[in-house]
């Protein structure tokens, strides 16, 4: 879910492990000097002709340890600033929510942070953290949970005690549970306020079906049914040291840190940790095209057009990702941006996205917001650009640009100790090899125009396109009629 797609979507491109890279600092100095020499007067007048060597960088490697209770720890020191950050990935998540208590995982994470611990009241936790200018956050997502501590070096020991206490012995004080529930209900009440929020959630339901863990939503009923006992049980059942990967970065020394970690977590016993399993989407749910709209009183139509796609581990994934990059994933450089925004002036925000994980079918989609009168034209451009990806090879220049952008921005994968460690935690959590990103990079560099076209033909499928438009309903049904039978999705009132 995170790696390839996120960065491609932002037009940034991918990260990578870098065992093959050579020596750091003095090489860099040399390269910078060399580039200045190259960029003499002539070259500075002609940016098109500028060439630079690829920046080589050997980022520091984190150390990996396993505590006796199974907790995995990555350590990477960085002494530039007097700060320490501890990030935890927890094997839990909303995929475990019972069907009648959707929102349970999310609320458990929130109330672990706000509900106090066995040794401190909620107010004491808040007061002390804010007095120390330390931050603890805990949140549970679909496929994992995360917790983090960000603390000044001088307060590390105390910060870590509170952090461990909240992870291991949250108190879920009743008043804070009530507050979390009220906040969740207010969130439900407000989630139809903006068309952007509606289109994202309804499109997920259109692709996965409304009860699938990747699309289902909280409801007033599901939130009201959640009790403090549910939160206690969910924590007890899913949060165990052997389900936690810890990433520690910043201004510490290894021996001292290990002693502190053992003090904080060493006597925490193992539990049974479930493997993340997300049910497959029933074939009938997603094999066919659909056209739907939601009526909202807006001046723009919010459009999503796409279908389910491969997992991150599929052999075609890298080719699909680069095809998507060229189609609409790389902002300024992409075809959709150039066609719909630059040449036609029809949208401010336009592009395509590929979101894949190792657990679950991914989503591929094209998106834009445009005024009602240009809605039909934009959908036509989506379809035409998709067809062109299928029917013609991309140009040599487009493929070369995509590869160069990927290779040259690669160094941004290693901007800090925390980003290096976060990547290692991610890969281990998802059961992927440490050199996964290097493997992806090798595949990207080898891609041919045929590979891209084959991927587009196989994985951008016009017969399966699902079209969702949120906007001025009366007119939308006519505007969309040329794309298939149009039906309205009526939103239940939330308040």
């Amino acid at each position: 879910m995170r790696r390839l797609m996120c960065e491609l979507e932002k037009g940034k491109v991918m990260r990578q492990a870098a065992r093959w890279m050579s020596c750091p600092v003095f090489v860099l100095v040399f390269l910078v000097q060399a580039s200045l020499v190259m960029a003499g007067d002539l070259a500075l007048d002609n940016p098109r002709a500028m060439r630079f060597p690829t920046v080589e960088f050997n980022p520091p490697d984190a150390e990996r340890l396993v505590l006796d209770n199974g907790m995995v720890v990555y350590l990477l020191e960085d002494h530039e600033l007097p700060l320490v950050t501890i990030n935890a990935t927890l094997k839990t998540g909303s995929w475990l929510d019972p069907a009648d208590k959707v929102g349970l995982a999310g609320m458990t994470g929130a109330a672990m942070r706000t509900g106090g611990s066995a040794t401190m009241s909620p107010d004491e936790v808040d007061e002390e953290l804010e007095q120390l200018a330390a931050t603890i956050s805990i949140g549970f997502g679909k496929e994992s949970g995360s917790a983090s501590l960000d603390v000044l070096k001088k307060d590390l020991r105390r910060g870590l005690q509170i952090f461990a206490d909240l992870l291991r012995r949250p108190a879920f004080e009743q008043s804070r549970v009530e507050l979390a529930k009220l906040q969740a209900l207010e969130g439900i009440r407000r989630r139809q306020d903006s068309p952007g929020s509606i289109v994202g959630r309804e499109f997920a339901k259109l692709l996965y079906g409304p009860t699938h863990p990747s699309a289902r939503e909280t409801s007033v009923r599901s939130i009201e049914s959640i009790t403090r006992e549910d939160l206690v049980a969910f924590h007890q059942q899913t949060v165990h040291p052997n389900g936690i990967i810890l990433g520690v970065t910043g201004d510490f020394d290894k021996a001292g840190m290990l002693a502190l970690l053992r003090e904080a977590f060493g006597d925490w016993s193992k539990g049974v940790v479930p493997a993340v399993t997300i049910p497959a989407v029933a074939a009938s749910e997603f094999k066919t095209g659909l056209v739907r709209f939601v009526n909202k009183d807006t001046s723009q139509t919010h459009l999503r057009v796409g279908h389910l796609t491969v997992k991150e581990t599929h052999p075609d994934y890298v080719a699909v990702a680069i095809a998507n990059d060229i189609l609409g994933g790389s902002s300024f450089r992409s075809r959709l941006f150039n066609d719909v925004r630059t040449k036609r002036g029809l949208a401010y925000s336009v592009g395509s996205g590929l979101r894949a994980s190792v657990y679950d079918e991914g989503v591929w989609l094209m998106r834009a917001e445009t005024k009602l009168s240009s809605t039909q034209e934009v959908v036509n451009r989506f379809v035409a650009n998709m067809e062109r990806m299928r029917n013609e090879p991309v140009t040599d220049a487009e493929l070369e640009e995509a590869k160069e952008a990927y290779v040259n921005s690669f160094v941004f994968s290693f901007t800090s100790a925390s980003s290096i460690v976060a990547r290692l935690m991610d890969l281990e959590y998802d059961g992927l090899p440490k050199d996964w990103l290097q493997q992806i990079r090798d595949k990207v560099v080898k891609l041919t125009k045929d590979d891209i076209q084959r991927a587009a033909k196989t994985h951008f499928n016009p017969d399966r396109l699902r079209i969702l438009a949120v906007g001025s309903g009366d007119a939308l049904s006519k505007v969309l009629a040329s794309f298939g039978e149009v039906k309205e999705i009526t939103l239940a009132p939330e308040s």
Partner: protein
Amino acid sequence: MIGITRVRTIGVVILSGMLAAAAPGYAESPSLADRVIEHKLANGMTVLMVERHQAPIVSINMTFGVGGVNEQVGLTGLAHLYEHMAFKGTRTVGTRDYEREQAVLDELTTVGNELDRRERDEAARAQMEGKSHVASQEVQQLQRRFKELQDKAGEFVVGNEMALLYQRHGGVGLNASTGKDITRYVISLPANRLPLWAALESDRMAHPVLREFYKERGVVMEERRLRTDDSPNGLLYETFTSTAFQAHQYGVPTIGWGSDIMALTPAATEAFFKTYYGPNNATVAIVGDIQPKEVIALIEQTFGKIPAAPPIPALVTEEPPQRGERRVEIEFDAEPALAIGYHKPTIGHPDDFVFDVIDEVLTEGVTSRLYSTLVRDKRLAASVLSDTNYPGVRAPNLFVIAATPLAPHTTAEVESAIYEELERLKTEPISAKEFERVLNGLDADLVRSLRSNSGLASQLAFYQTVAGTWRYVLNARARIAAVTPADVQRVAAQYLTKPNRTVGVLVKKAPDKKLAAVGEVAR
């Protein structure tokens, strides 16, 4: 999932951000004062550099002292439109043949101006006569000619070439933003690509070409719909701000009023560029794996060739004192929200540092007064936040408190609970513990702000531009630390008063039938 989004720094989310979090200095980081290297070019351009060699990357923030405040009546949105046009290239980048292209662009502009004028006239006449607008033969002919010329001009364009060059060379975070006071252009690059940046940016400072102008106007209209017209918060803040400022340009939306945007011309845009985009109005902050001497040589070699522009016109309009509460409602198909603003002096004024303390005491963190009272204990509000320098810092501005009620409570209940807390500020001194928390938080924020090349570059260029020196941040912490509980009481009593406030309320309204579409001609 989206392509690049160019954000404007107007306050939809007005939580402190740069100002509250960063204002007070790097006093706890004594090395920063020594680490910033300043260089001023003969043409007036300012360069600020910090070496950070952790990774072979560099972040660059180019900030111009121009924004919405520099616009005239009828030309609102111009600063932001120019920011979009700045991505269209130069005489060498973005074109296949500039000489021939320019001839077509000139003719296109002539026809475009004529077409704009006639269409507006005809639409106005039709409206007066109560008829629906049908283009005359003459206008239709102009439209056809316009389309031909636009297609012809398009043949010369290499679309988004500047961005493409950055991306090919591994650039990330390419973006720009327009605010009330400043306009910024940012990018991060592998460190050895700095010459590419210097070549591209000096070229666009010297020779920008306003190609694809009319299409970009349409893009900006879509941006306005997205951020303002269809956004409950966007509309609330636009209306709230224009109510609070009746004379000063801070009251005008940075994105521009829709009718103004559609009337902007290439000539006005060109004139705006010539007035405000000289090197003497620019500061560039460069943070990362750099050798400052080489950077200076590179910048002298490129930007150094650009002549200084005349000094920019002074801003003369002052907001008259507010004499009485102003209340405004905005109806929208959305749950209610509330914004309360008080006029106050801007950065540098002694009372502004007191507002930094008030801001933190009221809303920073879950132990802050407004959060703990309204959200945690009374459960009247779902959220509350404040901003001490809204919507800009180059002129007297507003202290804003914003909140959303927690149903079934109303904005009226939340509003009166906020006033109770503001009264408390006037009558009870803040505690030593609260004050200590404020200073600890500011000090830690300052250390954390050094974590990111782009964040540091942003702050340095920001204060250099709006306060005249990046060192503002070094002095501010001492000024804040010197604030006394009596200062807080005095400032609260002086500024947080009913006649000095503006209140904007977002009121839920059931959706009704679609209003007539905006009278825009798509080109």
